[in-house]
C-alpha cells in the first residue's frame, strides 16, 4: 500500500460535474495548506480539482473538506463525488479521463440530478434480553448449562450465544426495514461491511422525498426498537450511485 509521493503537478480530484456547473468561488481544498479549488473542463464535463498537497492523510479536516465541497457543489447541480484520496498526475490526464468516460459520466449525472444519498445502519440492541433468552433455543440451553455448572468457559459460551442471538435478531429486523425503505427509494445499494452493523445500506432519493423518508425510518425504528438500533445519516453526496447504469 505504498503510494509514491505525488509529483509537483499532480492534482487532487474532488468530483465530476457538467461543464456548465458553476463552482462557487473562494473554495479551498484538502491538505495542511489547502490550495484553491478550480475546474478543468473537457467536452461536456468538468472535474473539480486543486493542487495535490505534498502529503495527504485521511485526517478529519481533509475528509471534511472533501465532503463539504461535494455537498456545496451539489446545491447547484448534480455531482459525482470521487472517493477520498484520488490524485491525478496532471491536468492533462484528467482531461483525457473525462473525455474517455464522458457518456457514462453524463448518464450518472442525470441519474443523481436532484437526488441525495441517505445511509442507514442497523445495529444489534441489548434491549429486551428476556425475550431472547426465552425464544433462542441455543441461549436457553447454554443458560441452563451455565447454571448447572457455572464457570468461566460456560459464561463465555453463553455470552457468545447471546451476542449471536442479538445479531441474528437485529439482522431479521433490518431485512424488514430494508424491504420497506427500498420500496420508497429510487435505488438502494449495500454499503461496505462495517464492524458491529448488521445492515449498511444507502438509498438514492429525490431531495423532496427526504422528509417522507425520514418519517418512514422513524416509524420503523420505533417498531423495531427492541430488535435493532437504526442510525440514519444524510443527506450525503451520492457516493454510492456514481455509475451510470441503474
Amino acid at each position, binding site marked *: 500500500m505504498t503510494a509514491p*509521493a505525488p509529483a509537483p503537478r499532480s492534482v487532487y480530484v474532488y468530483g465530476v460535474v457538467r461543464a456548465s456547473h458553476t463552482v462557487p468561488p473562494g473554495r479551498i481544498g484538502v491538505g495542511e495548506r489547502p490550495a484553491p479549488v478550480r475546474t478543468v473542463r473537457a467536452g461536456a464535463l468538468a472535474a473539480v480539482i486543486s493542487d495535490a498537497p505534498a*502529503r495527504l492523510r485521511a485526517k478529519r479536516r481533509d*475528509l471534511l473538506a472533501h465532503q463539504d465541497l461535494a455537498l456545496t457543489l451539489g446545491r447547484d447541480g448534480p455531482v459525482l463525488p470521487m472517493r477520498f484520496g484520488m490524485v491525478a*498526475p496532471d491536468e492533462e490526464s484528467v482531461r483525457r479521463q473525462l473525455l474517455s468516460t464522458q457518456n457514462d459520466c453524463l448518464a450518472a449525472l442525470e441519474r443523481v440530478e436532484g437526488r441525495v444519498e441517505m445511509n442507514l445502519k442497523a445495529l444489534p440492541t*441489548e434491549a429486551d434480553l428476556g425475550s431472547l433468552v426465552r425464544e433462542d433455543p441455543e441461549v436457553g440451553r447454554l443458560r441452563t448449562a451455565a447454571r448447572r455448572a457455572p464457570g468461566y468457559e460456560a459464561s*463465555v459460551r453463553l455470552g457468545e450465544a447471546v451476542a449471536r442471538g442479538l445479531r441474528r435478531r437485529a439482522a431479521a429486523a433490518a431485512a424488514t426495514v430494508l424491504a420497506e425503505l427500498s420500496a420508497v427509494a429510487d435505488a438502494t445499494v449495500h454499503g461496505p461491511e462495517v464492524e*458491529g452493523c448488521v445492515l449498511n445500506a444507502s438509498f438514492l432519493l429525490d431531495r423532496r422525498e427526504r422528509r417522507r423518508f425520514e418519517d418512514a425510518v*422513524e416509524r420503523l425504528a420505533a417498531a423495531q426498537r427492541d430488535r435493532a438500533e437504526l442510525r440514519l445519516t444524510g443527506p450525503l453526496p451520492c457516493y454510492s450511485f*456514481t455509475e451510470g447504469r441503474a
Partner: protein
Amino acid sequence: MPTGTYTEEVVRIQRTGTLYDCLELILDRGMVIDVFIRVSLVGIEILKIDARIVVASVDTYLRFAEACNRVDLEFDRSKTVPELLGGVAGGGGSPAGRMATGLGKKKAKKAVAGVGEKVKRAVGADDDEEEEGEREERESRPRRRAAPTRRRSASASEPSEPSEED
C-alpha cells in the same frame, strides 16, 4: 404513539457534516478512476480492528452471560441488560426499574459513542507519527499500532503537521 418524539430516542438522524457514520462511504465508495493514484490511507484498517474488540470481546460475553443469568423467566419484568446488571431483576417493575431502563439506554449510547471515539482516534492517529505525543496521551495507542504499517516516504523528513482537530 406520536412518531415525532422518537427522533432523538430511537433513530439518530445525523447531520450532514457528521463524518464518522459515513466514513466508509467517503473512503470506499465514490467514483474511482483506475489511472489515478490513490493516496495511501494508513490507519483505517486499524480502526476496524479496534471496533471489533469493542463489539465482540470476552468482556462483552461475560457481561451478557451475567445479565442472562439474572433474567427471571417466570416473572420477567425487567428488560435490558444494564437494568439486570443494576440488580433490579425480578419483580422490579417499579419506578426505580424504569429509571434503570433509562440509564441503560444512556449507557448503550455511550458504548456506541465509544466506538465513534475510536474511529475518531484512529483517523487522527495517522496525523503525526513523528511528533512526540505527550500532549495527547489518548491518541498514543492507535498511533503506536499504526506505526508498523505506516507508509514509508520522503514525508518522514518533513516538518510535522500541527493537529488541528477535536
